């Protein structure tokens, strides 16, 4: 585990919401279309009355709407399906889209592509509406009173069956946890946070999965559900009652556990750990451009490494550009204990060092930082006379006896530039710099042509390499409360809790208890491995698909060496194509668990923003809606007494 904050994926952004919604529409529409294709034959077979009566509630206007949207789906799929079939039969060329944006395509390809894309969207929308229609109609008949009664029942059941006793296992962590945590002083807090979150996650999610998966099958087995469905209760209310009841109960447990854990963490935190992570930084990240970055041989390509040995005519540096800064950033440096003209904005860095020589004992390596605002000619470093003037001014101001901060601010205001030379950087430590607030004093007049701020970092230590990533350097917008952030981190766990309960309840409408639990666990674990499964499905995994991997394993072939082509290998590779296609469809069922895990943010002392929580919440809703719709149909079509 790296004792530093690493973000392998960008946090969710509002800008990506429209594209995500479109992708969701196509995926959900695709599943809806598949459901319609399964359902349609039933309509024309002997089960017509039963299925139809159940779904439409016998209302003719819903039947008409349903027919319109199913028809709309079939009609709109026709041209797309014809085109695809035509390409397969060689009647035309498909639009060349691979590696191209729409702007790069030929006009004909662009029209073809857009037409097919739009027609697919239309088909997906029709299919989705057709599937959602009976659900929406049923929603209007739901009663909050009944859902609440059913939720209370689930709540009482869990309490009276003494399920909550399992959470007392947390005491073991409180009592003995510290015996087993090896840590450097600065890592104490992050270790504690990671451990308590891990234990809470395991206890809560296993319990949630068990109670949710076993509840409905137990009701069906014991026939207690007979006395409920013979009351004026919609079947979907039973599902919602279970979901809300267990979620509500476990939410209370989560709140209490979080409180205990917070007290446990905060009770004896050492100074170094507090400085490192007992806060909630609000960072402002820039974009990174690395010139001359190298791979030093790590399998994990998270960072690029710049050398301290770079030649002058071929410099290596990391350049962060900040294009979206708060207009009032300069004011953030104003504090009661800071004299006017000495305001500073904190910057934090966490770099990796790759050494090719031992270097100095107990010392880091040295780096230089150059901060240039949008008014500064690009770059000062490239205009030696300007830089020389800056440095002359710096020397002369030092003679005046003014404080360093005051001098830095004066020069920053004049040149839009600030530099830090020979700054010692230690391996995987969060280090702080302060830059003059005057760099941002005219930010309100920023013209957006140039980046608001550029930060250039160079490695000054010869024979050493500095590893950098986009998230290794940031301006500090604010520092917030760790305690509040700890609860925000718990919201991530709450999202996973909702997901597990919903999936388990849905599975339990059709499967038995143990199988429902296992399916939920399987999906959860698959969600943790989503990136790898994606690689396999997209034929990006080293060593090929599942069958090729098995073949290599049996034959003891190295994964990076291409296989000799022969008929057997051809069969295996073609089988892999089928399995990859199936895996691709299966991908849409897997939750993106990584998105809901906010542990690293809290452990490393980074604020989980409200927008972050909101967007992850939207992602959860997008994932859960199809599951809930599925549960609606599954329980509705189920013969309770069969």
């Amino acid at each position, binding site marked *: 585990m790296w004792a530093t904050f690493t973000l392998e994926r960008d946090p969710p952004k509002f800008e990506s919401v429209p594209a995500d919604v479109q992708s969701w529409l196509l995926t959900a529409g695709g599943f809806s279309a598949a459901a319609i294709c399964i359902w349609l034959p039933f309509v024309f077979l002997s089960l017509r009355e039963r299925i139809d009566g159940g779904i439409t509630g016998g209302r003719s206007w819903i039947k008409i709407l349903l027919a319109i949207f199913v028809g709309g789906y079939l009609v709109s799929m026709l041209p797309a399906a014809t085109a695809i079939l035509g390409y397969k039969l060689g009647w035309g060329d498909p639009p060349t889209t691979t590696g191209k944006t729409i702007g790069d395509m030929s006009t004909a390809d662009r029209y073809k592509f857009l037409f097919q894309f739009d027609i697919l969207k239309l088909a997906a929308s029709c299919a989705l509406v057709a599937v959602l229609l009976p659900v929406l109609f049923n929603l209007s008949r739901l009663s909050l009173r009944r859902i609440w009664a059913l939720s209370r029942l689930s709540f009482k059941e869990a309490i009276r069956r003494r399920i909550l006793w399992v959470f007392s296992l947390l005491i073991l962590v409180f009592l003995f946890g510290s015996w087993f945590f090896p840590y450097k002083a600065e890592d104490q807090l992050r270790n504690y946070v990671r451990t308590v979150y891990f234990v809470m996650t395991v206890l809560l999610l296993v319990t949630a999965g068990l109670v949710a998966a076993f509840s409905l099958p137990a009701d069906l087995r014991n026939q*207690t559900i007979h006395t409920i469905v013979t*009351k004026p209760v919609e079947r979907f209310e039973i599902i919602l009652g279970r979901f809300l009841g267990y979620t509500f109960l476990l939410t209370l447990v989560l709140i209490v556990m979080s409180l205990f854990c917070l007290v446990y963490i905060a009770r004896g935190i050492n100074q170094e750990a507090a400085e490192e992570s007992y806060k909630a930084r609000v960072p402002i990240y820039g974009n990174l451009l690395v010139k001359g970055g190298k791979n030093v041989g790590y399998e994990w390509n998270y960072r690029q490494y710049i050398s301290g040995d770079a030649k002058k005519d071929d410099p290596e540096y990391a350049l962060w550009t900040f294009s979206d800064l708060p207009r009032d950033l300069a004011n953030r440096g104003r504090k009661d204990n800071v004299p006017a003209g000495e305001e500073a904005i904190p910057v934090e860095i966490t770099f990796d060092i790759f050494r090719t020589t031992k270097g100095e004992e107990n010392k880091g390596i040295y780096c230089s930082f150059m901060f240039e605002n949008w008014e500064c000619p690009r770059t000062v470093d490239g205009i030696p006379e300007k830089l020389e003037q800056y440095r002359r001014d710096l020397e002369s101001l030092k003679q005046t006896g003014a404080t360093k901060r005051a001098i830095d601010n004066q020069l920053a205001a004049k040149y839009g530039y600030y530099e830090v030379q020979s700054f010692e950087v230690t391996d995987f430590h969060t280090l702080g710099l302060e830059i003059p607030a005057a760099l941002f004093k005219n930010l309100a007049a920023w013209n957006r042509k140039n980046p608001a701020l550029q930060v250039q970092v160079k490695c000054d230590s010869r024979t050493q390499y500095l590893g950098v990533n986009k998230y290794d350097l940031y301006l500090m917008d604010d520092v917030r409360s760790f305690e509040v952030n700890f609860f925000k981190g718990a919201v991530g766990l709450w999202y996973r809790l909702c997901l597990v309960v919903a999936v388990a309840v849905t599975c339990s409408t059709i499967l038995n208890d143990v199988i429902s639990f296992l399916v939920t666990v399987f999906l959860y674990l698959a969600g943790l491995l989503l990136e790898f499964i994606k690689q396999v499905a997209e034929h990006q995994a080293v060593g090929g698909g599942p069958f090729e991997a098995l073949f290599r394993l049996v034959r003891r072939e190295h994964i990076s060496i291409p296989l000799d082509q022969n008929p057997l290998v051809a069969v295996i590779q073609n089988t892999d194509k089928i399995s990859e296609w199936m895996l691709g469809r299966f991908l849409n069922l897997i939750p993106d668990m990584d998105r809901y895990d906010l542990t690293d943010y809290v452990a490393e002392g980074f604020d989980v923003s409200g927008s972050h929580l909101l967007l992850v919440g939207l992602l959860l809703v997008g994932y859960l809606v199809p599951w809930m719709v599925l549960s609606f149909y599954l329980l509705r079509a189920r013969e309770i007494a069969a």
Partner: protein
Amino acid sequence: MAQEVFVETRKLTKVYRDFWGRQKKVALNALNLQIYRGEIFGLLGPNGSGKTTTIKLLLGLLFPTDGEALVFGEPAAKVSKNERIGYLPEESYLYRFLNAEETLDFYGRLFKMPADLRRSRAEELIVKVGLASDKKRILKEYSKGMRQRIGLAQALINDPDLVFLDEPTSGLDPLGTRWMKDLIIDLRDKGKTIVMCSHRLDDVQDICDRIAILHEGQLQEMGEVHALLEDANRLEIQASGLRLNEALQQDLEEVLRRHGGKIESIGHPTTTLEKLFVRIVEESKAHPGRRYLPAADRSGATAADGETPRRHLPESTPVQKSKGA
């Protein structure tokens, strides 16, 4: 005036299938029924004849393979009909972690009932089913009879117009059975319609107005109980104030011969075992401590504790004498 039909089935058929859709069993075959408002209707038949399947189809717990099941004129799958329905399953399948009060409160919440009405109704039903002193105990601690009682209470929580009872006397002792039968009759007298199934013929005979007899999913017979049971070729006379003797028997034979009939059997009628049992238990309640004594100790004996010993046999012990047909 035509009677209002509460329940109707038209060619109602249910076929159970296996996982592959192959026919496993025809549980019900083209059943046509009409159940009228205010009657007690019994579904009779041996195990596996389709009684419970019929009730489950009417409740929407099963879907028909063919035909229609209508309740209050609407398809059985419609949820809204449940507002006017009560259902007591064969076993009282209730949540065992709840107590009687909580059980009724929970089921009451599933109906549109104001809180105060729900509470008063629950209280009233708890008293009615005789569980007032046990209302705080969780159902797990209840005996089967007590669970059946609370099961009936939950079926009546919404004051339903139509009550489905699946083997209502199953698992009840004779006292409980009597109590249940009285209650069913009382419900009918209050205008409720009862549909019950049972394979206990005496129960059905005692309380049902009409019955349908099913066998292997087929309707074999349907009609009013007394009409179905009436034997028009035989005559029964019961008289009081007489003891059977030779002279009486000869006179009766003479009279009947004149009208073209003959005596098949003559004797003092017996009571039912149920009536005997109920009476003994009630006597026992009235005279605590009284107990059975063997015949040898009975004559004029007084128990050591001063209580009168119970008679060995009741007055109406069968003394039946048969004549050959």
